[in-house]
């Protein structure tokens, strides 16, 4: 069995989706590189007072996004956060979270490979997302720093808008990635180009 541990015979990880960028006037849809992702759950009392764990800001309101250097967090519910960082940091992030929360009841799950992320950027980005997402994506309804679980067509997504610029990040489970990408590409194709 010794040879199985060597890098030559380690499992090769195939990307869940290798789609070329969709580039139309007013929108660009791109599959984002792999990242380390974690789902963090805390009990109600701890969640209410949580500040920062392993460089991730937890003290943001529900449905808000925060970024510290290369690590970002999205509070998806009163006691649930989606955490992300560079792919190579996965092991370090897990160890830092465990160290920071040692002795406290918590749940942390590595979901790095469960999800695929897309960038939907450009003046028409909100319109294209609205082809399948029922949220108000105007700057009033979904301002910079917003993040939430929602739906796109028949698939569940996490939608983030890091800043007020029309650049959205869409995450979905890998088995929905082809569908979500095709849905967005079709919406982009049907969108009247405005330049």
């Amino acid at each position, binding site marked *: 069995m010794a040879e199985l541990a060597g890098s030559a015979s380690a499992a090769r990880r195939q990307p869940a989706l290798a789609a070329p960028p969709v580039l139309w006037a007013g929108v660009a849809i791109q599959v984002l590189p792999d990242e380390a992702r974690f789902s963090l759950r805390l009990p109600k009392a701890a969640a209410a007072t949580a500040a920062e764990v392993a460089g991730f800001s937890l003290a943001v309101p529900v449905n808000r996004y925060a970024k510290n250097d290369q690590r970002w967090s999205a509070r*998806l*519910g009163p006691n649930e956060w989606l955490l992300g960082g560079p792919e190579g940091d996965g092991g370090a992030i897990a160890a830092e979270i465990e160290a920071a929360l040692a002795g406290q009841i918590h749940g942390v799950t590595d979901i790095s490979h469960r999800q695929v992320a897309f960038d939907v950027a450009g003046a028409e980005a909100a319109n294209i997302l609205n082809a399948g997402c*029922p*949220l108000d994506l105007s700057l009033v309804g979904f301002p910079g720093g917003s993040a939430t679980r*929602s739906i796109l067509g028949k698939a569940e997504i996490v939608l983030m808008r890091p800043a007020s610029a029309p650049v959205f990040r869409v995450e979905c489970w890998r088995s929905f990635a082809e569908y979500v990408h095709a849905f967005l590409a079709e919406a982009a194709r049907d969108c009247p180009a405005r330049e």
Partner: protein
Amino acid sequence: MLLIDCPYCGPRPEVEFRCGGEAHIARPAQPADMDDKAWAEFLFIRSNPKGVHAERWIHQHGCQRWFNALRDTYTDAFIETYEMGTKPSRLPDGRTTR
């Protein structure tokens, strides 16, 4: 689209939610002590009013939290939503409002 006021996320489109049936039905503490008729009533018999109804809802494609709602089954208007384990500011007034 109907907007439902999630206690955690605020007003959100109805397609993000699922209904979990009538609220405030306590599970019997000792099911083994109940006869079949009483157990069946607990499992299957609901008030089914025409009017204000207390229901459990989950924000399935959002914060994924369960909460309670008072909804008028005749008009489909949501009167109030409130967290699990809490009571509404008014109680459903029996079987009907009409």
